[in-house]
Each structure stands twice: as structure tokens, then as C-alpha cells.
């Protein structure tokens, strides 16, 4: 019997209006709720302790892996253009800030949590985890607790950024802002930044200018600090990419975070820490797995580029890695995955996504949780 419990319950009658008031107007996709409060997950405090410890441990392993990659000077296996290797290394050596990230974990409450991947660059489902489920708890499970320190840790994070920069500088927030989910995440980050005492301004990724010396806003002002909800691998492939090497903008997340959001970190971690209880065997060679396994594109996002390979299926060789199959636990016919947040280099909370299919994708629903 699984220890983690999935409970069915009646959604609040006006839940759409309630979450919209909190900035979540992307609660429904294709007529189906994305924010799903027809169910919730109950964890024991001991289970949360296990998730928290695993998250802290995995983050520490990841930082160790970055150190080794930087010192080794070879990022070819991560399919990162060599032009940017030194620039990435410099961002690590300067301790450029990485504010947040989200591990995707497989955990059923019994076996140790297993790391499926680390969304260390552009993690989404942030507003849902930090805000929406917190307010859900207040109303639906008053008096109960929840593993969710994300909001106050983010404010602390931005205060730390403020201490490192000219506090009069405006912090810019960018992404593909005509996408409601991206806009919601970007605006939430701007919100916590402003609560930390910094001025923030949003602009679409296409609105960023280059004046020959600096990236600029629409008024031509230099952008000194830029929070981007836009993957590094995309930025590195676009027309302005060469300006990254000479511009003065400080990026959040920092360039070195792209080493961790890359799926190639999975086999690298397994090479460094073979047999670690929170890692799955992973390799740059399909032939290292005799049976079924999971193929992942090194730059894949939100389930894109992930496929389950049967025994004997060779898969594709182009910019992919392979990982041991670790089926997600199933509750009421739903595959559930835990998004475990790291904020300020510490485990900060969780969010649950579930899907009737074994691969979590962009349309997998978000389900709140509480501590039983």
C-alpha cells in the first residue's frame, strides 16, 4: 500500500474566480482544468522530511557536478557551443545568482525519491505551487500545514540580489509574454522582487534591444539585471547570442544554470555518483541498457523529446541521453510526479502534477497537497 494518499474532494464552487484573483488566468486548457482541486495529496511529515532531504542532497550533487564540468572545461557532451564555454565558466566563478529550480521526482512514499530531471533554468508551475495551493490550503484545509516556503524564500532571494547590485537599478522581467502561463510566472517573479524592495519592469523577449554596448529596454535604457523565463539554449541559438559575450547585463538565472537544466547532467551525475539512492542509472549510450529505458533529448522541455523505449528499440542518437525506466506512482489511474522546489539553495516546497499518461507534459494537471 502506498503511504502517500490521494484524496478526492469537491472543488470550491467559484474556484476559477478565486485563482484568477491571484493572477492565475491559465487555470483551464482546452476546456479541462489545469488547476485541479477535485483531488489533493496528503503527505505525512516524515515523507516530507524524506523529500526535503533528497532535494537538498540532489542540489548539492548538482553543484558539485557543475564545479567538475567547469574545471574540466569540456561542455561538448552538453551540446553547448564552444564559443560560450568560457563565458559560462566565468558566471560560475563570479557566483552569479541562481534563484530557483525544480527537481522532478518519482516518489510513492516508500522507496527513496528518484531524480527524473532538474528544471534549473526556466521552471514553471511556480505560481501554482507558491501561491495558488497556499491559498487553497487556507480555505480548504485550514489549520493544516503544507510544504511550501517558496514565496517567502523567493523574497529572501531577491533581497540577497538587492544586496549585490545598485539598489536603484531596475530589474527587468522577460519571456514570451503573450503566453498566459509564462506571463503569470514572470509577473509573479516581478511581484516577489518588488516585495524585496527592487523596482521591476516586464518586457517581452522580442522587445529587448541592443544598442551596440548594452541590451536595452523599449526606452533605450540599459538593462543591467534581467530575469528571463526563456531557456538559455534558445538564447544561445538566436541572433543576439554574440552580444551575450560582451554585454553588461546580469542574467537570472545565471548562465551556469544551463548546465543543470540540460538532460546531459543525468548521465554525468550517474558517472560521478554511481549507485546513489536518489539517482537513476543514466548514460550517453543506449547500449548501456539491455531492457526498456527512457530516451530524453538533452534540450527537451516539459516532456518534449521524452519517449519510452522498449527492449530492442534503438531509439535516436542525436543529442539524446538514456535513463533507466522508473515508472511514476499511480493514484486513481493518475501518474503523479513531484516537483520539488529549490529556492536559495535549499529545498523550499513541492507541487504535484498528474496525468493519465506516464509522461508528464505541458497539459498535466496541477493538484494541491497538504500535510496529514
Amino acid at each position, binding site marked *: 500500500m502506498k503511504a502517500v494518499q490521494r484524496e478526492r474532494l469537491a472543488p470550491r464552487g467559484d474556484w476559477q474566480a478565486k485563482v484568477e484573483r491571484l493572477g492565475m488566468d491559465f487555470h483551464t486548457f482546452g476546456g479541462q482544468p489545469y488547476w485541479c482541486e477535485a483531488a489533493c495529496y496528503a503527505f505525512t511529515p516524515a515523507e516530507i522530511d524524506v523529500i526535503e532531504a533528497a532535494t537538498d542532497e540532489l542540489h548539492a550533487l548538482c553543484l558539485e557536478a557543475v564545479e567538475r564540468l567547469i574545471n574540466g572545461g569540456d561542455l561538448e557532451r552538453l551540446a553547448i557551443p564552444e564559443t560560450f564555454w568560457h563565458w559560462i565558466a566565468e558566471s560560475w566563478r563570479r557566483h552569479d545568482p541562481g534563484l530557483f529550480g525544480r527537481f522532478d521526482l518519482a516518489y510513492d512514499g516508500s522507496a527513496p525519491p528518484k531524480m527524473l530531471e532538474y528544471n534549473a533554468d526556466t521552471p514553471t508551475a511556480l505560481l501554482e505551487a507558491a501561491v495558488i495551493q497556499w491559498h487553497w490550503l487556507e480555505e480548504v484545509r485550514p489549520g493544516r500545514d503544507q510544504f511550501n516556503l517558496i514565496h517567502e524564500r523567493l523574497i529572501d532571494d531577491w533581497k540577497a540580489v538587492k544586496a549585490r547590485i545598485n539598489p*536603484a537599478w531596475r530589474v527587468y522581467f522577460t519571456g514570451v509574454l503573450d503566453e*498566459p502561463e509564462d506571463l503569470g510566472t514572470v509577473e509573479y517573479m516581478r511581484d516577489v522582487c518588488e*516585495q524585496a524592495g527592487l523596482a521591476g519592469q516586464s518586457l517581452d*523577449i522580442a522587445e*529587448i534591444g*541592443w544598442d551596440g554596448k548594452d541590451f536595452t529596454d523599449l526606452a533605450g535604457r540599459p538593462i543591467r539585471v534581467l530575469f528571463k523565463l526563456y531557456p538559455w539554449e534558445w*538564447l544561445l541559438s538566436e541572433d543576439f547570442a554574440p552580444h551575450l559575450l560582451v554585454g553588461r547585463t546580469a542574467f537570472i538565472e545565471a548562465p551556469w544554470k544551463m548546465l543543470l537544466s540540460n538532460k546531459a547532467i543525468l548521465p554525468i551525475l550517474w558517472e560521478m555518483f554511481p549507485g546513489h539512492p536518489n539517482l537513476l542509472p543514466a548514460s550517453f549510450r543506449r547500449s548501456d541498457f539491455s531492457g526498456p529505458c527512457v530516451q530524453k533529448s538533452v534540450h527537451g522541455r516539459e516532456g518534449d523529446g521524452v519517449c519510452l523505449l522498449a527492449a530492442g528499440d534503438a531509439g535516436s542518437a542525436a543529442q539524446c541521453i538514456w535513463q533507466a525506466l522508473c515508472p511514476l506512482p499511480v493514484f486513481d489511474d493518475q501518474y503523479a510526479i513531484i516537483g520539488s522546489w529549490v529556492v536559495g539553495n535549499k529545498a523550499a516546497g513541492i507541487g504535484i502534477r498528474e496525468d493519465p499518461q506516464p509522461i508528464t507534459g505541458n497539459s498535466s494537471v496541477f493538484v494541491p497537497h497538504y500535510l496529514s
Partner: protein
Amino acid sequence: MDPDRRRSLMVNLSVLGIASAIAIPYLPAGAEFRRNLYRDRESCIRDYSADQCEGPQNSAGSGGGAHGGSWRGPRYYSDRSLPEARSDPGVGRFGLSSGNETSIRGGFGRVGRALRAVG
């Protein structure tokens, strides 16, 4: 902080809720823009209008840059033959500017928009 507490004490928001009001202009990839620079506000207003002129930038923004002391007119496309240039503010009525500054936009965002378009 209560050492047993596992959730934020308060989750208050200040700016959310206005997010959906943001409108994204179409920007051709690699589009070059200009802004005229003026020694004084009056010259700028004569070329454009008071609403379209912006005063000298101060350090409270992100730094003034090379032309921090100038008044600026609105942004317009450098290439006046582009269809998009027909609806921009133009080069100014009387050509009273003391110079201009250029910037290129649309150099980021291509991959994101392409993938979203097919997603």
C-alpha cells in the same frame, strides 16, 4: 520562525492581476530603430508632441548611457520603406534633432515563438 512550520507565513501579492493587460507589439527580427535626440524639450515637442517626448534619463533607471542629458523623441523604424514604418511616429516634423540613437530589436524570441506556434 516556528521550526515546525513548513509553509510561508503570508502569501501576499502586489502587482499580479494586471498581467493580462500587456500587449505585445509585432517586431520583425533584427529590426533597427532610431530615437531622435534633442537639446531641449521645446525642439522635441515641435518635432513630435509633449506626450511623445521623454526627458533626460537619470540614474534611478538603469543608468543614463551616452546621451543621458538629452530629450528623446519616440522610437521609429530606421528603414522607412518597411510596411510597419507607416504606423510609427516617423522621423519628426521639422528635423530639429541634434542626433539620434539606434538600437536593434527582435534578436531574441525567435525560437520561443516558433515552438509555441506549433505546440
